[in-house]
Structure formats: structure tokens, C-alpha cells
């Protein structure tokens, strides 16, 4: 027992020191306590609203059959959902798009002309199956956007149970960028795409947090090791010092991100190889991989976001004296990275309530994720608007960072956690 003599006393001291450090208390305990309930709330709201929306949405049925069974099916659907019917329409690409636009819906069902005949045959020969066709639009914006597909699955399942098991099956097609792709279930496509596209928000999340840590540590290290004062008296522009810090960090973080993406890509490829049979979809042939221009926009979006994050990390770390404090203080910025990354991983920003939508658009770190989704469906404007916004934000942050480096505040500014006020007020002037 002598081995542990003094352990309790020492542990108590450690706990006191850690818990009384407001940076640790806020960053490690209070922030996660708040962040995850907020995130959970957003997620459950979004899933619920997507489900309600799908249930309340009009189900458009194009009836090309005219027999008794199609009437029964429509009546059955009408019992659970609001159904509109269009009779005898040849569904080519343009007609489908027109109908979706006219009814402001994302999917429709076609009852083909042989539906009733097949249903009748099924009575005597159960191997004969009557098909309905499902056409769902795909935008890749949310994991739950094709919830309509599941709603129809459910309704047909109930119809089968009511009339005859396995009498009706669904032939699903997906409308991608205005083109009908036969035989592709939008739901499976969404799931498959998300299993791959999930890499982007995770990469952005890790890249931003990792590089912010490096930037904050790098400035704090100069302070802790007492090299900053010497550096600031050298015959070089202080903006060059700031840019040197940011560039060094970007390079290290970039290499880190590349290594991470390579590893993650390997992980994802091993994951999709075991995907269930029948889902061997090639996203490239469906036009669901970004173009070179799309990749360029994503790269720019990522770069400006990274720059703003690093400049922000440099600013906040200038207010503390040592590495540990710097690492804690950048933790306050993490919710602004984690919440958009995790929320936008699954959700369509357009389906969120207005206040949340504005909040997510206002957070600069949302934009590379929004851009990564937008470029897949060729929506370059969204990506460009995001880049313009983040660039403006970055310029403001860079300006603030350069002002900070130009004045004595880089040495004298300190955060006082009681009320988060600055401990000392210094003259507003700056060196020329």
C-alpha cells in the first residue's frame, strides 16, 4: 500500500487544478454537454419533419391501366395519403419532369397498362407479379430526402398484405440531373452516396480542428518559449510573420489531411465492397462524381475556410500565454465546426427551419460541406456564393489578425475569464 501513499492527496490536487481552470471546464465539459443535445435536437427535428412532409405530400399516380385493380390500388393509397391521379399518360423523360414540376413533388407512381391483367393472373399463378413504377428525384442533399420511396414501399407492403402477398412489386427509377435512370432505387443511391460522401464532412472536421490546434500551438509556443518578442523586433513586416505562421500550418495540415484522406479512402473502399448485392452502382456513370471544375471550387472553398479558421485560431491563441491554454481556447470554436459537419452530413439544409438555416449559412465552416454536396449535382452557384461569403469572412479575420500583430496587443492582450473582459486596456495606436 506504500506504493499508493499520497495518491489520494495528489489526485485531489490534480482535480482541483483541472476543474478550476475555466478553459478546461468550458472546453471539455460544458461545450460537449451543450453541443450534443443541440445536435440531437436538430437531427430528430429534421427526421421527423422529413417524415411528416413525406406523409403529407401529394402522391401522384399516373394510371395507364384503367382496370379494377388499379382503382383498388388508388383507393387503398388514398386511404393513407393524399392522392392525385393523372390518367393515360405516356411517361417519357420530359413528361415525368413536367409532372413533378407541376405538382411540386419529388416522386410519382405509374400504374402500367397491364397491371390489372397481371393481378388477375396472380390469382391463379402466384409467380406472376404486377409491377408499379416509381420515379423519384435525387438531389443528394440529405440522407432523408428519399423518404417518399420508403413511404411507398410501406403502402405497397400493406396493399399486398391486404389483398395477396407478393402480388405487387415496385420498379424504381431515379431522376438524376433531369434524366431518368431506370432500375435505380433513389433510396439505395442516397445510402450508397452518403456512405462515400460522408468522408468529406469528416475530413473537413478533422482538417480544421487539427490545423487550428497547430496554428494555436505555434503562436502559443512562441510566447511560451519566449521567442515572440525577439521575432517582433526583427526587420521584417509583421504581416509576413502572420503569413508565415498560417502558411506553415496550412502545409502541415494539408499533408495531414492528405494522409487522412488516403487512409479514409482505403477504409471506405473496403466498406463498399461488402455492400449488399443489387447495389453495385457506379456513381461516375450516373454523373454523380464532381467535375474538374467542381473539384476546383471545392478546393477553393476548403482553402479559404481553412485560412479563416487558422487566422481565427491565431487571434484567440494570442490572448493566452502557453500551449495548454491555447489548445483549450481553440476548443471554443469547435462547436462551430462539429455542428455543421455532423448536421450537414445527413440533412438537407433547405429542409431546416429558417433560423437554423440562417445559422448554418452564417457559420463559415458549413460552406465546404454545402459545396461538397452542391458540386456533385452540378450546382456551382451555391458553391461560388459560399466561397464569396467565406472569402469575405476570411478577409475580415485576416485583417483583425494582421491588426493584432501590428499592435502591442499581440504581447499584452489577455483574456480574463471572469466576464471574459480584457485584463488590461492598452492604447489603440499601432506601430507604423
Amino acid at each position: 500500500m506504500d506504493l499508493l501513499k499520497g495518491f489520494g492527496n495528489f489526485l485531489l490536487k490534480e482535480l482541483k487544478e483541472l476543474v478550476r481552470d475555466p478553459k478546461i471546464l468550458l472546453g471539455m465539459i460544458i461545450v460537449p454537454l451543450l453541443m450534443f443535445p443541440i445536435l440531437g435536437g436538430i437531427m430528430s427535428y429534421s427526421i421527423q419533419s422529413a417524415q411528416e412532409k413525406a406523409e403529407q405530400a401529394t402522391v401522384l399516380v399516373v394510371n395507364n391501366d384503367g382496370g379494377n385493380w388499379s382503382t383498388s390500388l388508388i383507393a387503398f393509397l388514398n386511404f393513407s395519403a393524399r392522392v392525385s391521379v393523372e390518367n393515360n399518360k405516356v411517361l417519357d423523360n420530359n413528361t415525368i419532369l413536367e409532372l413533378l414540376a407541376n405538382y411540386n413533388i419529388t416522386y410519382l407512381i405509374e400504374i402500367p397498362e397491364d397491371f390489372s391483367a397481371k393481378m388477375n393472373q396472380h390469382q391463379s399463378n402466384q409467380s406472376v407479379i404486377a409491377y408499379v413504377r416509381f420515379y423519384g428525384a435525387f438531389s443528394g442533399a440529405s440522407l432523408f430526402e428519399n423518404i417518399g420511396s420508403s413511404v411507398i414501399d410501406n403502402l405497397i407492403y400493406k396493399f399486398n398484405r391486404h389483398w395477396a402477398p407478393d402480388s405487387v412489386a415496385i420498379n424504381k427509377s431515379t431522376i438524376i440531373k433531369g434524366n431518368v435512370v431506370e432500375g435505380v432505387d433513389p433510396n439505395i443511391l442516397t445510402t450508397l452516396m452518403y456512405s462515400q460522401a460522408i468522408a468529406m464532412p469528416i475530413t473537413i472536421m478533422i482538417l480544421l480542428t487539427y490545423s487550428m490546434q497547430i496554428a494555436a500551438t505555434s503562436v502559443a509556443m512562441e510566447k511560451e518559449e519566449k521567442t515572440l518578442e525577439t521575432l517582433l523586433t526583427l526587420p521584417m513586416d509583421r504581416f509576413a510573420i502572420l503569413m508565415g505562421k498560417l502558411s506553415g500550418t496550412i502545409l502541415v495540415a494539408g499533408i495531414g489531411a492528405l494522409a487522412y484522406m488516403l487512409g479514409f479512402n482505403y477504409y471506405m473502399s473496403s466498406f463498399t465492397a461488402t455492400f449488399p448485392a443489387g447495389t453495385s452502382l457506379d456513381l461516375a456513370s450516373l454523373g454523380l462524381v464532381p467535375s474538374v471544375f467542381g473539384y476546383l471550387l471545392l478546393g477553393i472553398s476548403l482553402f479559404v475556410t481553412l485560412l479563416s479558421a487558422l487566422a481565427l485560431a491565431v487571434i484567440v491563441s494570442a490572448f493566452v500565454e502557453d500551449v495548454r491554454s491555447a489548445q483549450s481556447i481553440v476548443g471554443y470554436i469547435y462547436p462551430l465546426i462539429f455542428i455543421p459537419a455532423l448536421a450537414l452530413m445527413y440533412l438537407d439544409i433547405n429542409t431546416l427551419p429558417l433560423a437554423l438555416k440562417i445559422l448554418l449559412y452564417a457559420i463559415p465552416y458549413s460552406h465546404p460541406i454545402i459545396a461538397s454536396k452542391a458540386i456533385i449535382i452540378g450546382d456551382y452557384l451555391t458553391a461560388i456564393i459560399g466561397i464569396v461569403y467565406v472569402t469575405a469572412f476570411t478577409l475580415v479575420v485576416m485583417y483583425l489578425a494582421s491588426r493584432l500583430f501590428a499592435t502591442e496587443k499581440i504581447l499584452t492582450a489577455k483574456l480574463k475569464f471572469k466576464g471574459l473582459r480584457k485584463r488590461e486596456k492598452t492604447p489603440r495606436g499601432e506601430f507604423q
Partner: protein
Amino acid sequence: MSLAVEAVNVVKNFGEIRAVDGLSFNVKNGETFGLIGPNGAGKTTALRIAATLLLPTSGTMKIFGLNVVQEAAEVRKIITYLPEEAGAYRNLSGWEYLEFMAKFNTRSKDEAQQMVNEAAEITGLGERLKDKTKTYSKGMKRRLLVARALMNKPKLAILDEPTSGLDVLHAYHVREIIKRYVKEHNVTVLLSSHNMLEVEHVCDRVALINKGKVVAEGKPSELKEKFGSANLEEVFAKVIGLA
């Protein structure tokens, strides 16, 4: 010939605290001038203002005629500054650190190399310069940093407590470096110290500072004679009414 340093009624406030309170002194070209006084007297703040790190709340300070606020970038070209607790980059070797610093002063590779060679000689660290600075003792690190501050022959070297915390041998070495280098290269030195005995051996003139103000100024020998004291410590005690 303009003065090397001209401080006129310099005041520096940190919130409620007045660190420097109407400080005025002049340093002539080529001399070694010491600001001496106890901890908290305002020496470091005064040196930081001279080194363009802090802005004076009021008053002016000029280095060779250049205003430290309006012409800070020009001032930085002719000064070097050694902070009291300065460190070197831990993962660079002493040699690499000197090279890194030399490149800020010249674009010529030959000149930079010459500076590094000279600094290497000043440090007296020999082969240890190849080791990372994190392996250096406090005295070795200080020798490296003093050499860095002098290697480019600045017009003004601002040295804050150059021998603080060093043992007798290292302190002696650092003092010798300063004395020798100033004579050889006509470098003006503005230094601070709370070790008044040591300053007598290094400085041509001194200003005794207490509570942010100059309370006495002159050559050490003159001050000792004026106050009938054996050393500057006694002079200081008499000036502030302790003795």
C-alpha cells in the same frame, strides 16, 4: 551627431498601473548605457518601448533620430533586442538558429555566413552549436542569444538583464562579450539590470530608475563620488532614502 537614444517624458500605463512615469534619458552614440533599478521599476517596459514592442502612452522616444512609434519599421533595421527571458527555437540547433536570425539582416549568403561564424566565435560553444538548443543549459542559451543580438553589428543593441540567472562564469563570459564587442565595432548598448555591482563594470553611464522615474543619472564613478558611496547599490539606497 544625433543621440543613439533620446527618451523624453515617456509614460506607459497598463490599465490602472503606471509602469513608466515620465522617463527621460539620453544615450550617446557608442556608449554602453545601463538602466538600473529593482524589479518592477519599469526598466523592461522602457526597453520594450525602445524595441518597438510597446507603445508609449505619452512622451516620445527616438533611436538615432527615428521615432519608435511612427518609424518603427526603420528602427527595427538598426536595433537588436534581447528580452530578459528570451528563448531559442527548441528544435533548431544553435548553428541553425544563428543562420535563421542572420538571414533577416542580409540577403547576401556570404554576409550571413560571416555573421554566423562571428556569432559562433562569440558564443564559445564550439561543437555544441550542432546540438539542438533544447539540450543547452541556461548559460549556454544566454551566450547564444547575446551572440545573436550582436552578430550583425547593430547600431543599437538593447539587452534586458543580459546576465540574469547566470552563474558567475557564464555571467563573466557574457559581460566580456558585451564589453569587447562594443569597443571593436562601435555598437551602442542600452541594457538593464537589477545587479548594480555588475553594471559598474560594463556601463559607461547609468540611469537609476525607481517607480518608473529616473532618480539619478551619470557615470558610475561620478555617482559614487557624488553620494559618497562605495558602490551603486549604496547610491541607489541613498537616492531613494533607504540609507
